[in-house]
C-alpha cells in the first residue's frame, strides 16, 4: 500500500507535448502511476486533484526510452563472471542511475557473448516496471549478436560470433529458454547475410521479438530481404555496416527504399511522412537507431538520415560501462576499452569506436542541434519512436491517458529539471 495510492495529481502551468505539438492551457493528470483522463475523473468520479504541481512553464514530455545501452557506472550487463546477486544489484544500480538523465525505460543490451553468458544473464534482466525504488523500467533485453558478420564486428569479440547452421535451433541453443518466453527479449540484432539467419527471422518475429539489422555487410538488396522477412529496425545506422556508396547503398540504402511491401497495420512501423513511399499508409522502411554523440556519426550525416526518414529515427546511447565515470580503462564484454580525455571510447590499442559515453538527454539535445528540428521532433525521437518500435506506444513515450506516468520537466534548452517515474518524483542530485 503506497502512501500515494489513489492520489490524484494535476500539473499546471506546463507546456505539454500532446498529439505531436506543444500545447499550453492544458493540464496533465495522473493517479496510481498512470496518466488519466481528467474529464472522466471529474464528471464520472467527482474527483478533484489531491495535489497540484506547478511546472512554472516547463516543457513537459514523456520519459525517454533508451533501447541500446550496454552498461554504465562501471557495470557491464554482459559480465557473467559475477554472482546472481551481484548481477541483480548491478542491474538495479544502472536502472536507478539512469533516471537522472531522464531515461525512465531502457533495454539492457548484451554484446556478442558465448552461450553461458546468455543462459545466466537473460533470466535476470526480465521486463520490469519502473519505479523510484527499482529505477528505470526494463523493457526487455536488446541482444546484439552473436549472429553477426565478423567483417563488421566493431568492438565485439570475433571468437563468439557464429552462424545459424541449424536454423532456429541454433538460436535457442545459444540464448537458452529465455528466447521463447515473452518476458525477456525485446530486440535482437542480426546480420541477415550470415548463414541461416534470414530464414529464422519470421519465426523470431512471431515470438514477439523485434529484429534489427546491424553489424552486417548486407547490400541494399540483402537488407531489403531482411526487412521483407520481418526486420523492423536498423542497429546504430552508419556504424558497423558498409558506408553509403552511391552505387550500392547498403543498409543505409533502406532509408531510400520505395519497393518494400506496405505493412497491413501501423503496429511497429513508422508513421508516414512526406518522404514515405505512400503518404497515407504505414511506412514500410524500418526504424533506425542513431547514436548522437557527435562522434559515432557526423552531425551532417545525422541530418541527412533524419530528413530522408524523419519518422523512423530512434535515438540510442549505445552507452558503455564507462558512462557516468571519468576517463580510464573499462570492460565491454570480453574487451578492454579505453576512454580518453575527450570522452571517446576505443577498443584498447585501436581506433575502433567502442560504444559511447553519452546520456540520452544529451542525445536529444545534440540531435536537435544537428538537425535543426523542432523540440517535438527531437523529443519524439527518444520517446514516441522507440515506443512504436517495441509496440508499446499506448503506455510509453506518450502523455495520453492510459500511459505510464513517466514524465520529464525540461527547460527551453531541454535540460532536465524534474523526473517522475510511475507517477512518483525522482530525487535528482543523487
Amino acid at each position, binding site marked *: 500500500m503506497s502512501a500515494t495510492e489513489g492520489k490524484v495529481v494535476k500539473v499546471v502551468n506546463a507546456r505539454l507535448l500532446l498529439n505531436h505539438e506543444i500545447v499550453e*492551457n*492544458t*493540464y496533465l493528470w495522473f493517479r496510481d502511476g498512470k496518466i488519466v*483522463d*481528467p*474529464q*472522466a475523473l*471529474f*464528471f*464520472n*468520479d*467527482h*474527483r*478533484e486533484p489531491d495535489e497540484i504541481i506547478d511546472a512554472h512553464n516547463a516543457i513537459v514530455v514523456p520519459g525517454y526510452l533508451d533501447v541500446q545501452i550496454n552498461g554504465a557506472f562501471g557495470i557491464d550487463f554482459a559480465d557473467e563472471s559475477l554472482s546472481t546477486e551481484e548481477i541483480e544489484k548491478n542491474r538495479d544500480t544502472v536502472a536507478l542511475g539512469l533516471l537522472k538523465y531522464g531515461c525512465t525505460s531502457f533495454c539492457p543490451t548484451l554484446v556478442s557473448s558465448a552461450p553461458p553468458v546468455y543462459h545466466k544473464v537473460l533470466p535476470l534482466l526480465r521486463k520490469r516496471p519502473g519505479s523510484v525504488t527499482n529505477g528505470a523500467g526494463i523493457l526487455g533485453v536488446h541482444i546484439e549478436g552473436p549472429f553477426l558478420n565478423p567483417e563488421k564486428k566493431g568492438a565485439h569479440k570475433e571468437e563468439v560470433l557464429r552462424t545459424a547452421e541449424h536454423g532456429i535451433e541454433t538460436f535457442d541453443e545459444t540464448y537458452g529458454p529465455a528466447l521463447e518466453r515473452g518476458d525477456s527479449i525485446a530486440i535482437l540484432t542480426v546480420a541477415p547475410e550470415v548463414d541461416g539467419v534470414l530464414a529464422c527471422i519470421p519465426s523470431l518475429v512471431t515470438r514477439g521479438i523485434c529484429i534489427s539489422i546491424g553489424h552486417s555487410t548486407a547490400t541494399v538488396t540483402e537488407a531489403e530481404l531482411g526487412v521483407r522477412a520481418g526486420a523492423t529496425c536498423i542497429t546504430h545506422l552508419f556504424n558497423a555496416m558498409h558506408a553509403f556508396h552511391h552505387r550500392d547503398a547498403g543498409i543505409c540504402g533502406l532509408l531510400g527504399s520505395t519497393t518494400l511491401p506496405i505493412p497491413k497495420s501501423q503496429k511497429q512501423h513508422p508513421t508516414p511522412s512526406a518522404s514515405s513511399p505512400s503518404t497515407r499508409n504505414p511506412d514500410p522502411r524500418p526504424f533506425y537507431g542513431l547514436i548522437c554523440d557527435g562522434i559515432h556519426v557526423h552531425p551532417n550525416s545525422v541530418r541527412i538520415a533524419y530528413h530522408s526518414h524523419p519518422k523512423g529515427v530512434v535515438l540510442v546511447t549505445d552507452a558503455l560501462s564507462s558512462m557516468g565515470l571519468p576517463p580510464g580503462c573499462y570492460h565491454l564484454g570480453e574487451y578492454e576499452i579505453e576512454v580518453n580525455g575527450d570522452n571517446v571510447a576505443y577498443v584498447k590499442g585501436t581506433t575502433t569506436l567502442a560504444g559511447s559515453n553519452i546520456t540520452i538527454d544529451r542525445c536529444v539535445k545534440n540531435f536537435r542541434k544537428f538537425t535543426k528540428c523542432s523540440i517535438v521532433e527531437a523529443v519524439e525521437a527518444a520517446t514516441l519512436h522507440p515506443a512504436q518500435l517495441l509496440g508499446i506506444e499506448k503506455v510509453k513515450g506518450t502523455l495520453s491517458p492510459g500511459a505510464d506516468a513517466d514524465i520529464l520537466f525540461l527547460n527551453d534548452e531541454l535540460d532536465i529539471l524534474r523526473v517522475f517515474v510511475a507517477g512518483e518524483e525522482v530525487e535528482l542530485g543523487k
Partner: protein
Amino acid sequence: MRLIIREDYDEVSNYVANYVKERIKQFAPTADRPFVLGLPTGSSPIGTYNKLVDFFKSGELSFEHVITFNMDEYVGLPKNHPQSYHTFMWTNLFAHINIKAENVHILDGNAPDLDAECKEFEAKIARVGGIELFLGGIGPDGHIAFNEPGSSLTSRTRVKTLAYETIIANARFFEGDIGKVPKLALTVGVATVMDAREVVVTITGAHKAIALAKCIEEGVNHMWTVSAIQMHPKGLIVCDEDSTLELHVKTVKYFKSIEHVHQALIGTENLSLQDIFFFVGT
C-alpha cells in the same frame, strides 16, 4: 431591462466576465449560501469563460462555493464525445478553475429516462435555492438555450427536437455527416431561465442583429423566445456594435445615454449592484 453596448466581441466578453466576477464577490458565497450560476455553451461565451479563467488564475475569483447549471446537452452523445457539452464546459472552463465536481450540473443526455432526468434537474435547481444569475446567448432565430421558435414561454426543462436548420448548422462538427448529428437535446425551458433572479444575455455579431431587434423592440413573442426577457425584473443584455445594426437609432442612443449619465453624473463609486444593477466595467 438594461442594454450595454460595447465595441466588439472582446469588450463584450470582458464586460460580462467582470460583471459575473463582481456579482460573485459581492454575494460573498459560502458553503451554506453558494452562488448558483446558469451557464451556456456555443461561441458566444468562450471569451467570457477565458476571462473568468484569467480571474481565477490571478487570484481575483474563486469558484469554491459556486454551483453551476448548464442550459442544455445533446441526447445520445457520449459524455466524452468531442462535441458534447460536457466536453465543451470541461475544456473551456471547468478544467482551469477550482470548481468542485459535485457543484457542477449538466443534463445527462444518456439517462435511461429522459423525462425523469429533466424533472430531477429542475428539482436540483430548487433544492439549492434557485439560480442567482443565468448567463446566456442567443441564436440567429432569437432562441435561448434550445428553445427554438414556437417554444412555450412558460416551458421548463424538457426534451426538444432540434430544428432542421440547427442540425445542418451543427453538421460541421460531425464531419459534415448529417446522419451523425444528434436530433434531440435536453434543454432548460424559457421559464427556467426567467426564474433566475438575474438574466444576462450576450449578443455579438451582425448575424444576430435581427434577433436582437425582434427581442427588444417588438413584443414578447414565442417565435423569438429571448423576448421573454422583457418580462424579467432584472434583465441585462450586453452586445457589440455589429449586433445593433437592426435596432432603431433612437434605441441605441437611448441606452448609450443612460450609461453616459451614470458615468458622468453619478459616478462609478456610487454603484450598488443590487439597487441600480449597473456596473460600468473596465
